């Protein structure tokens, strides 16, 4: 089953986690067959929010929700069940300074 692990943390704390550590973690996921996709994101200052209302596109600066912890990246992993997904998430390096939201992926209900 697929789980999306969303990495949230205060951007000021991002520097405390070296990129090399995140890269090594991703490679570990690949080598044990759990890796489906993963990316780190640019700073939240680069975020743009897009909405369509009454067929009109509205574009605004900034993220959808202003919170202290920001979305900094994600890992899409393949895990047997939630316990395994939690195990994998607990080893994501920024988990030490931020938090990881683990969400099961839903199959779209189409024939």
């Amino acid at each position: 089953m697929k789980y999306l692990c969303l990495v949230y943390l205060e951007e000021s704390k991002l520097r405390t986690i070296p990129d090399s550590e995140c890269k090594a973690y991703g490679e570990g996921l690949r080598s044990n067959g759990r890796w489906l996709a993963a990316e780190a994101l640019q700073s939240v200052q680069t975020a743009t929010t897009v909405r369509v209302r009454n067929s009109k596109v509205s574009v605004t600066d900034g993220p959808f929700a202003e919170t202290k912890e920001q979305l900094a990246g994600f890992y899409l992993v393949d895990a047997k069940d939630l316990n395994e997904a939690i195990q994998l998430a607990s080893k994501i390096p920024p988990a030490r300074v931020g938090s990881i939201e683990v969400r099961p992926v839903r199959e779209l209900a189409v024939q």
Partner: protein
Amino acid sequence: MSETSTQSAHSIAESVYRAESRRVFATLVRLLGDFDVAEEALHDAFHAALEQWPRDGVPENPRAWLVSTGRFKAIDGIRRRARFDSIEDHAEHVENIADESPQGDDESIEDDRLRLIFTCCHPALSSDAQVALTLREVCGLTTEEIAQAFLSGAPTLAQRIVRAKAKIRDARIPYEVPTPDELPQRLESVLRVVYLVFNEGYLASSGSSLTRVDLSAEAIRLGRLLVDLLPEPEAVGLLGLMLLHESRRTARTSSTGGIVLLNDQDRSLWNREQIAEGLALIERALASRRFGPYTLQGAIAAVHAQATNADATDWAEIVGIYDVLLRLEPSPVVELNRAVAVAMRDGPAAGVALIETILGRGDLQDYHLAHAAHADLCRRLGETAKARRSYQRAITLSRQDQERQFLERRLTELPA
């Protein structure tokens, strides 16, 4: 079959239901992979038992009969629905169920009960949901009974349970006993649920009834089940702690329903049987040298249980245990309890100083018992003005009628 044996087969089916339904359910969840399907299968199986046992006789192993009948009924139901739905999905589901051998040996069935407990208390579920689900699925209470015990509406509670089951299914919370390296953290979550249930019954945090016997009894039953299935020191310690608290139940309310504090209780009313069992359990947990906060709290209750009256209590020993507890799990509430024990050992002034330090730090400002303890010690020191202010604050913060009445009585008893 004669009429009497028909009747007895009927009553056997009913007593088997009372004794075995949660075990059968736990195994059906494993075999069928879904709480709701298992619940339906359980009911179908007992329905079949009520029909067949009076006619054909009670099977040699009623539990195994119920498990396999429930499983067949479920497969049958899935096949029947498959005629209307997409056939491939269901065919696969039935195949998965049919693959699993319905192991009926005692060990795997006991494992199923543990699987059920750990799944209901999974930390990915909210604390409220863990409690509701455990009482519903492990203890077999009805939604109405749980709602009544927690003074909440049945629809709210039903929704909480439905959501929790949906999360178990959709996020795929596995039906398994945690691996040894996960066990300490997962067991903590189970013990917390059991103790929450106990305290809800024992302390009744809100409402007019001082104690709600049923929840405490359920918690003790759960505690016993855990100790049978997984005799970890903290599970043993928690059961001991609950029994030692429970032993004082009759003594802690007066004939008019008011609160009687520990130091004023008639100790001849304490339940000696529960004390003996509780003391033995605490000793067993302490001897393991792998004990934790529940065992230590139990050890404090054990010191009280062994004293013939408040003055004969070994307060120095109690302060010592609080010191260990604070090192293990620092918390302002434990600090407060320690302060009260220090007051008993060294006099009220020492306790007042400690409580004022805690409150001065900004901790426990909204905790009525902190103000009540402060008021009581000030009263004993003759500091009436301070005592009055603290009683008033405690009364405002208390959510429980008897407790408020007790505090109000103390307030009016203060010298003018």
